[in-house]
């Protein structure tokens, strides 16, 4: 039925008018600082500032490490979301709370925790050191720190999509003879692809902006661990114009990434999540058809 309730422009919304005032204030709180920053940009010097060697190095490092941590989030986040949404085991609620912890934890604290795990004197660090592997203050540390803070975004988004989708398609697939691996590959993942995509985008954006955990755990070595946010913070001390210009670059990258793949709150994936019983009414079928059409090859019309 969700699909049948498209908002018609001018239709009754039920929103009290003072809500619009509050909403406008909220929007201003986000937009005004951005505008103030844009106003401060030294435009004649903009290009030289953002193309300086240290800036480009930092930007490149940021994009590379964020891409790597997004991949890591996908690889680790899909199984986590699956067992949280579909599994049933003791300690499930506790696990969910801990997986979501980085969302509310100050990143600096996350960085310290990572340091005491992978650092030279850390829980795993000492054993890794023996094997000749040093993680702290390396590019790997940047990726780990970013994954640490970004993973919950993917897990939350995907778990929600999995719950909305329910397990009925999977049950049917199993009775048709598909083993669990096949069901995951051919049914579950394609069905939750929108949720996975928006989760991955959020993770990427969060990785791109990561500062506290990175600084604590990975330090600020140019070309190795100094990502764009760190570079901006450093430049602010010496060259405010450069900091503002780079901030604008970061905003632009973040906005374009989010705009590219995140199209607002999604409806459940197209297809039948019915309206049990009354599914035969012409109205809902027509609505279902319109939602599914963009996904097809467009050979209906």
């Amino acid at each position, binding site marked *: 039925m969700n699909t049948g309730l498209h908002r018609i422009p001018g239709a009754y919304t039920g929103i009290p008018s003072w809500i619009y005032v509050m909403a406008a204030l909220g929007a201003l709180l986000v937009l005004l600082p951005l505008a103030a920053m844009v106003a401060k940009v030294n435009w004649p010097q903009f290009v030289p500032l953002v193309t300086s060697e240290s800036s480009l190095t930092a930007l490149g490092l940021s994009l590379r490490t964020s891409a790597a941590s997004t991949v890591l989030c996908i690889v680790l986040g899909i199984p986590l979301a699956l067992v949280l949404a579909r599994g049933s085991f003791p300690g499930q609620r506790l696990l969910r709370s801990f997986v979501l912890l980085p969302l509310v934890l100050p990143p600096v604290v996350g960085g310290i925790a990572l340091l005491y795990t992978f650092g030279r004197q850390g829980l795993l660090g000492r054993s890794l050191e023996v094997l000749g592997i040093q993680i702290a203050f390396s590019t790997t540390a940047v990726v780990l720190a970013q994954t640490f803070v970004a993973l919950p975004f993917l897990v939350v988004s995907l778990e929600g999509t999995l719950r909305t989708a329910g397990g*009925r*398609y999977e049950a*049917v697939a199993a009775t*048709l003879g598909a083993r669990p691996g*096949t069901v995951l590959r051919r049914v579950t993942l394609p069905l939750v692809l929108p949720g996975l995509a928006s989760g991955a985008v959020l993770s990427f954006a969060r990785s791109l902006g990561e500062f506290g955990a990175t600084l604590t755990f990975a330090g600020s070595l140019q070309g190795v661990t100094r990502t764009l946010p760190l570079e901006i913070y450093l430049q602010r001390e010496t060259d405010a114009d450069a900091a503002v210009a780079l901030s604008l670059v970061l905003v632009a990258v973040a906005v374009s990434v989010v705009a590219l793949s995140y199209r607002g709150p999604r409806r459940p*994936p197209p*297809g*039948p999540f019915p309206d049990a019983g009354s599914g035969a009414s012409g109205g809902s079928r027509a609505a279902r058809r319109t939602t599914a059409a963009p996904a*097809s090859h467009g050979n209906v019309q």
Partner: protein
Amino acid sequence: MTFRLEAAVAARGFDVSLTVGPQETVAIMGPNGAGKSTLLAVIAGLLHPDSGSAEVDGRVLFHQAADRSVWMAPHHRGTALLAQEPLLFPHLTVLENVAFGPRSRGASRHEARKTARHWLRAVEAAELSGRRPGELSGGQAQRVAVARALAADPELLLLDEPMAALDIHAAPLLRRLLKRVLAERRAIIITHDVLDALMLADRVIVLEGGRITESGPTREVLQRPRSRFVAGLAGLNLVAGTLTERGVRSAAGQDIAGQHDPTPAVLAPGQEGVAVFPPSAVSVFLTEAHGSPRNSFPVTITDLEPHGDQIRVRAGELSADVTPAASADLGLAPGMTVFFVIKAGAVSVYPA
């Protein structure tokens, strides 16, 4: 060569045992919450019963006992499930949906598509192969779902109210289609519709409160209902009570005279029995009617509703059919007290 099941699920008060022959279609009927869907979930392996066992042609599907526990995963069972909603995978074309079963069982892409085309033709949906599920009508989608279930070559086909979500025009088409494809096949179909049971099933099993209450060839069960639920399905009035020399005495102490069926000799008075009569055999009077072979008792009208070209007069659990003219003449209205009069000859009496 049969399917045999015995299973109990304590949490749902479910305890059922049944068998299905190699080419037999069994209809499962029962009120909501009777455990019909639980039954299919247990067979398909989507729900673990607390105890019991099931096997199909000697293959053990599960065996839950204190000493031994065997559990076959759903994808090994060969029990394709067709639900009320078609549940076609929205991201696959119709052809890929139908090819899903064979492909999952290891057929090559080419073979799987060949099988899929065969079954799409069998359900008269070959022209839909290239479409996405979102572009199908409810009836088309359910036909494709039938093809998908059959393409998996199930040893036991499970149908959970396959017609329930269809509109009145699509249902008859699918019913005819199912009649054709279920003919030589072992299947269990849950339905609320007597027509499905009559047309599609060799046998009907009535499930009430998690237990089988009636079972037998569809015609016989409908002709001789023993529970109020089946009587309702068959459109008959049923009064349960104990058998007497002349008929049945209801729990409320009302005597109903009728024809013992079969011969009175086998009936022992005092045994539990039922009196069954069609609403058309019930006349409605404003005053008590007299005449020897009649039953006459006061009732309070609860509802009046159109029923074909008659008016159905409901009084609690009994109903009578009268013509609209008679209803108007008598000035029938809910809340009125009237007399239901039934000829003894129209009442069948038999043990419950």
